[in-house]
């Protein structure tokens, strides 16, 4: 009995998410569309063929990184709205490396490029982290402002330094062949590369780091209670800067899938707001890295699935994705609300209930 209850509690976010989804799809009936048809279109478009599944996984990859980015910052009590700018910097660094050092041998080139992604993002994330830790200016303001600075830097470098004059698109020159990750052939040509495997590994790494290492514990302590952490000898400014650098580095890894695995160049505006959808991914995962992987997959599937709505249905457009995202997040947070009401209403709390 007790174990069933624990399972129920653990499954509650999933049940809540399903509830939100059903509610959102139910809304389509109001628009005069058969909800069943909408579900069929969504599922078919997201998972219907190897190519469709590949595109879903392709969109899932950046969302795992940005979701982790936001979640890791959450764990240290920080709200990172700057993943959009950080991912662009990571991608830009990788592209620049791939352009200026074409001679790197094939086996180290991708490794260096991945490091460039991490460093580019981490440097960009560490700045607001430092400002928060040392100057007390709030990271929400700083990270969002850094997004604009990032866009400016990226467009300068793209348009005036490494401009690809061949095409119309504002994009850089292509990176050298040694840097390019091969794409898996089993997805019918969808650009699924090693970035997906990397995303899963990084996801596992984040969990291990946070839950099993001393540094991870210190980071979480600052997030849970700053003064208690300080009292036990943890430097909260250091942890804050570290957390933001980690968050930035994670976001920067989006560049791996895009620059190394797909476009082979930096395209301005390549991100479909992945940095911001990452916030939703992390919220659905309730701010914990553990839930980011399934949550990112759901959002990736929604992003791909709703694209086909425009021509498969007459009344419902791809904007349904936004409604679904909103309702899923709402119902998952309402689940937390239920928790909270339980706690204040019934003064009976188990260790698990608070989680």
């Amino acid at each position, binding site marked *: 009995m007790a174990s*069933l209850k624990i399972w*129920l509690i653990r499954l509650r976010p999933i049940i809540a998410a*399903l509830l939100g989804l059903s509610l959102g799809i139910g809304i389509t009936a109001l628009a005069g569309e*058969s*909800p*069943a*048809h909408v*579900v*069929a*279109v969504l*599922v078919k*478009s997201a998972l219907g063929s190897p*190519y*469709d599944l590949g*595109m879903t996984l*392709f*969109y899932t990859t950046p969302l795992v990184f940005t979701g982790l980015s936001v979640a890791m910052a959450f764990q240290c009590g920080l709200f990172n709205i700057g993943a959009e700018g950080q991912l662009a910097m990571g991608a830009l660094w990788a592209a620049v490396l791939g352009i200026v050092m074409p001679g790197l041998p094939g086996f180290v080139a991708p490794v260096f490029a991945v490091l460039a992604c991490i460093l580019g993002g981490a440097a960009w994330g560490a700045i607001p982290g430092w400002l928060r830790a040392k100057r007390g200016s709030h990271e929400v303001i700083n990270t969002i402002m850094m997004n604009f600075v990032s*866009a*400016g830097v990226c*467009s*300068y470098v793209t*348009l005036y330094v490494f401009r690809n*004059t061949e*095409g*119309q*698109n*504002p994009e850089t020159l292509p990176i050298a062949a040694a840097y390019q990750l091969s794409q898996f052939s089993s997805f019918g*040509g*969808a*650009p699924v590369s090693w970035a997906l495997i990397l995303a899963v590994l990084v996801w596992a790494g984040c969990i291990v780091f946070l839950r099993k290492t001393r540094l991870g514990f210190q980071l979480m302590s600052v997030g849970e209670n700053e003064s208690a952490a300080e009292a036990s000898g943890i430097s909260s400014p250091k942890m804050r800067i570290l957390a933001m650098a980690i968050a930035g580095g994670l976001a920067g890894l989006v560049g791996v899938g895009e620059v190394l695995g*797909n476009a082979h160049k930096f*395209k*301005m*505006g*390549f*991100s*479909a707001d992945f940095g911001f959808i990452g916030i939703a991914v992390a919220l659905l995962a309730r701010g914990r890295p553990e839930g980011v992987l399934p949550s990112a997959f759901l959002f990736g599937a929604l*992003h*791909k699935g709703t*694209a*086909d709505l*425009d*021509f498969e249905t007459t009344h419902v*457009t*791809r904007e349904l994705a936004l409604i679904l995202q909103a309702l899923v997040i709402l119902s998952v947070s309402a689940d937390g609300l239920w928790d909270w009401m339980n706690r204040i209403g019934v003064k009976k709390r188990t260790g698990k209930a608070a989680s």
Partner: protein
Amino acid sequence: MHLKKFGFLGRVASFLVLALWTSLASAGGLNGVGLKVGMVLDKGGKDDKSFNASAYSGANRAKDELKIQYKYVEATDDNAFEPLLRSFAQKDFDLIIGVGFAQAEAMAKVSKAFPNKLFAIVDSDVKGANVRSLMFEEHEGSFLMGAVAALKSKSGKIGFIGGMAIPLIKRFEMGFEAGVKHVNPKATVTSNFVGVTADSWNNPPKAKELALGQFNNGVDVIFQAAGASGSGVFDAAEEKKKFAIGVDSNQNWMKPGVILTSMMKRVDISVYETIKEVAAARNAEGKLPADFNKTFAGLKRFGLKNSGVDYALDSHNQKEMSADVKKKIDDLKGQITSGKIKVPDFYTAKAGKK
């Protein structure tokens, strides 16, 4: 709990079965006679009052007049073009039209993968045995705008405001400047660009700021090629009692008396004509002639000659485009179409310069 879960799964399953039936039923209806055209719009979407809107209206006209079947989608991001084009190609769409140069790469890939389908792309040159590229001679139209600006300017200072410094907009700028200099070699052209991000096409306040700056420096006519940002230029011109020139669609109506004329880029005509050609070539069974690809594929240019680009004249700008101005412009137009005047083209000039 278990019961509830089964209930949900059961519902999902019944949904799926139902959906299968409904989709089968609708597919049966769609397989009827008539050409099926799919269109993938750029991220701006069909309400951008610019080239997406124009392509959309061209396809709608084809739907009304030619009784074709037509569906459109708007892309969510640059990586969405390929799956969307593929989706159309996998279904029984005969002609798939991509709007905007951003989907050139995706179009090249997908058209190769589906050699039995017809593709068309607006604003880009994609090579392929089954692809038609619809390109516009923006520099020719811009040349005429430059001539109008130089004729109407009293100060000899003329302005250009572009959305972003991309080759396409540079092409507008270069043609415009050539037109100005052709009429008044002493006139100067000041250029500004709204920004460096995609937001540049939708930032009227910034465009207004730039326009006010130019007007304050003595500029009295501004040509804008800045998408939805252009309305900011019109506002500034109205405020300063100066002139502006519209772009892409006929924008004369937006501020009569302020807008001298508009350089129209008839994406709608190019889309409509393409659809019409395919529709006309089909026989009673809906089959195309075996060698149709040969006549269909390739680059189709739309310039002053075939009214693919033109200047707008209507009741809103009759006063500004007086008879003698109109005569001079039509004269220049004739000289361009006859080849007497060669308008410099950024696309070809670029190769020589850089």
